[in-house]
């Protein structure tokens, strides 16, 4: 298939490119950017006048729910939600059921995605067997099977010796570790940020130090073992600054932040809104401010959606009993644009957080519009405002605290490996 995306503002952070022109695609790869060859005969034309044309987004934390929890989401439904959000690569943590702790599970997910998916899937293999934090997995085999890194999902390895061994083993084979830092003892079964709101509402709190102490330990073990590490979904300003300092000192570390942490705080929990139940929890206004500053200072490599779709009954419970997580794929672009604007960042830098930044974290040759690269492209209207409604969403999970928010920045077209996978309703293609 030959596609030309005509007349858009092409922004490609990986190549520091910001020009108006055409993007030509043939046989799944980018063949020209800017001024296309006169003799390019397209069998599909996408009109991108007054729109931004950029690499398809890479989301570092997406729960597809398949295999294991198909009542919450399937590879088909959630990768379609990805396409609707302009996301062409989803990085999935290993905590599916079964856990991604063997090449067979990697193959299973790959086959299902090949059959029904609308996005590339990058997989993180389990760091320990069944994520129990006791025995390390066959990481080399997982890497051979195609995993881009290893992680213990939300279940941070509590035993420092096991974590050390896992890091040493991973470092032996150049595997990056993806860490969700949490000291489980300090978290102590809490469900919200420990502070003024938790005390007011009588909900068990997770202190900020549950995250920063875990980051402190993990950084020391990174230094000890020499493994490359990526800190996922930081929520604490102090933890972020610790990672930034370590990075400045030369440790091979990076970090991302979930989009909702840049907009919501513990204050949004007032009224026991279960859709604001996330893990790590929404922190203080001060933390949010520091995270936004960190975004502006380039401390974060990526903004992710931390997509966790749920069936409606998972949230129809007293707050602490609701399941944590937000269905976030379809609001990732708009929320990132909004955060970028609040932080006073140029569009190029904002889009880097969704494209070249996460590509570098995963070590994959995507997230760019380089000639010859896989043609993953997102076309969006930067200024278009729209209302998020349940009917609007492609994800099976309608659980989002941003429901009925007016958002700005709307995806019009998504092209995956040279194939259109999403066109916004009402857009002539």
């Amino acid at each position, binding site marked *: 298939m030959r596609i030309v995306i005509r007349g858009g503002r092409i922004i490609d952070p990986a190549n520091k490119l910001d020009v108006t022109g055409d993007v030509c695609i043939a046989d799944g790869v980018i063949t020209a950017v800017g001024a296309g060859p006169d003799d390019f005969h397209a069998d599909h034309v996408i009109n991108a006048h007054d729109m931004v044309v950029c690499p398809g987004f890479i989301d570092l934390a997406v729960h597809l729910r398949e295999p294991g929890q198909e009542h919450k989401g399937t590879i088909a439904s959630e990768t379609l939600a990805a396409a609707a959000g302009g996301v062409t690569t989803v990085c999935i943590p290993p905590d599916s059921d079964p856990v991604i702790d063997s090449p067979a599970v990697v193959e299973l997910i790959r086959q299902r995605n090949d059959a029904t998916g609308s996005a590339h899937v990058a997989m993180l293999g389990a760091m320990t067997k069944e994520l129990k934090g006791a025995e390390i997995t066959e990481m080399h085999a997982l890497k051979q099977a195609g995993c881009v890194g290893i992680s213990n999902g939300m279940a941070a390895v509590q035993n420092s010796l096991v974590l050390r061994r896992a890091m040493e083993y991973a470092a032996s084979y150049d595997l990056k570790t993806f860490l969700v830092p949490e000291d489980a003892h300090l978290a102590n079964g809490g469900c919200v940020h*420990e*502070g*003024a709101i*938790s*005390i*007011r*509402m*009588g*909900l068990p709190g997770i202190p900020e130090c549950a995250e920063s102490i875990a980051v402190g330990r993990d950084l020391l073990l990174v230094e000890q073992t020499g493994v490359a590490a990526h800190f996922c979904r930081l929520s604490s300003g102090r933890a972020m600054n610790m990672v930034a300092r370590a990075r400045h000192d030369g440790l091979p570390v990076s970090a991302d932040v979930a989009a909702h942490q840049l907009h919501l705080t513990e204050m949004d929990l*007032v*009224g*026991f*809104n279960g859709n604001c139940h996330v893990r790590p929890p929404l922190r203080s206004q001060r933390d949010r401010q520091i995270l936004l500053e960190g975004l502006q200072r380039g401390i974060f490599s990526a903004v992710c959606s931390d997509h966790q779709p749920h069936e409606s*009954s998972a949230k*129809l*419970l*007293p*707050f*602490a*009993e609701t399941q944590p997580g937000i269905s976030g794929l379809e609001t990732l672009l708009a929320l990132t644009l909004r955060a970028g604007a609040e932080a006073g960042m140029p569009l190029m830098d904002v889009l880097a957080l969704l494209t070249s930044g996460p590509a570098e974290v995963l070590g994959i040759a995507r997230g760019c519009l380089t000639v010859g690269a896989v043609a993953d492209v997102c076309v969006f209207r930067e200024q278009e405002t729209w209302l998020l409604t349940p009917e609007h969403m492609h994800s099976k999970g309608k659980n989002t605290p941003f429901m009925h928010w007016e958002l700005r920045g709307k995806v019009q077209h998504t092209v995956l490996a040279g194939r259109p996978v999403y066109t916004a309703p009402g857009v002539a293609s």
Partner: protein
Amino acid sequence: MKRQNLQLDEQGQLRHFLSVEGLSRAMLVDILDRAETFTGVASRAVKKVPLLRGKTIINLFFESSTRTRTTFELAAKRLSADVLNINIATSATSKGESLLDTLHNLEAMHCDMFVVRHNQSGAAPFIAAHVAPHISVINAGDGSHAHPTQGMLDMFTIRQVKGDFHRLKVAIVGDILHSRVARSQIHALTTLGVDELRVVGPKTLIPDSVTSLGVHICHDLHSGLKDVDVVIMLRLQRERMLGAFLPSEHEYFQLYGLTEEKLAYAAADAIVLHPGPINRGVEIDSRVADGKQSVILQQVSNGIAVRMAIMSMVLGRQGESQEVKR
């Protein structure tokens, strides 16, 4: 924004009673005044008023309780309502999904009010947000969040003895972190405008963030009780020893147990409250609990009048309330 005003209707009247937080001072005073009119009912030959005749109230207890349930039941019966008690032992998460199903089943029985106790913070507002519009919800204690009728009966008791709130110094002693009673008391006392409100206990049970509720923190009982007019003791749960909050009941009693000697730090006419049930020798010495400064039993009998007041305000909103005013 809508959720925060869940307990008020368009006219600003009580539609549910879920938390003291967010209610105006005038509303709290109104509740206390209304309760005053009901105190005589218990001493009549016929201990009933016909205010809620024909109304059906369901006591829906997901967590066991004898005292609170009984006083709610008595209050409802003295208002001539029909009362049904339902006890549903529930585990933390697995049965949670049945909560809405349970509610919808009970709604189908055409009742008018749920009095709810649940072990999860926020359960009462959750239920209020999801019940059919004709049903009112009264929070009889949800997790560590709120126990507003207890808070109001404590205010009633304080006002009965002390009169005005403005000059009072009040100390609440014990496990603020886990106490729904303390939260409701704090909101009520700050809204009613006491002169000073202190909370007393170790840091493990009194996090620094408590100051955001408008209280002063004391870690020793002597300075905490100095010159106070009202001492509110909280019940200490045994499981606090397991969670590393406290080393032993013995040390707790040494430091924070209210004895006659320690009560002497307070003003000479200070009163002592306790929401019950009492752990004698853990948070309070028997001589204080049964002493002349104790108003603990008064609290219990006031509980019925205060609950009658709240139930009648919530259910008697459309002009049915004139009878009480007389």
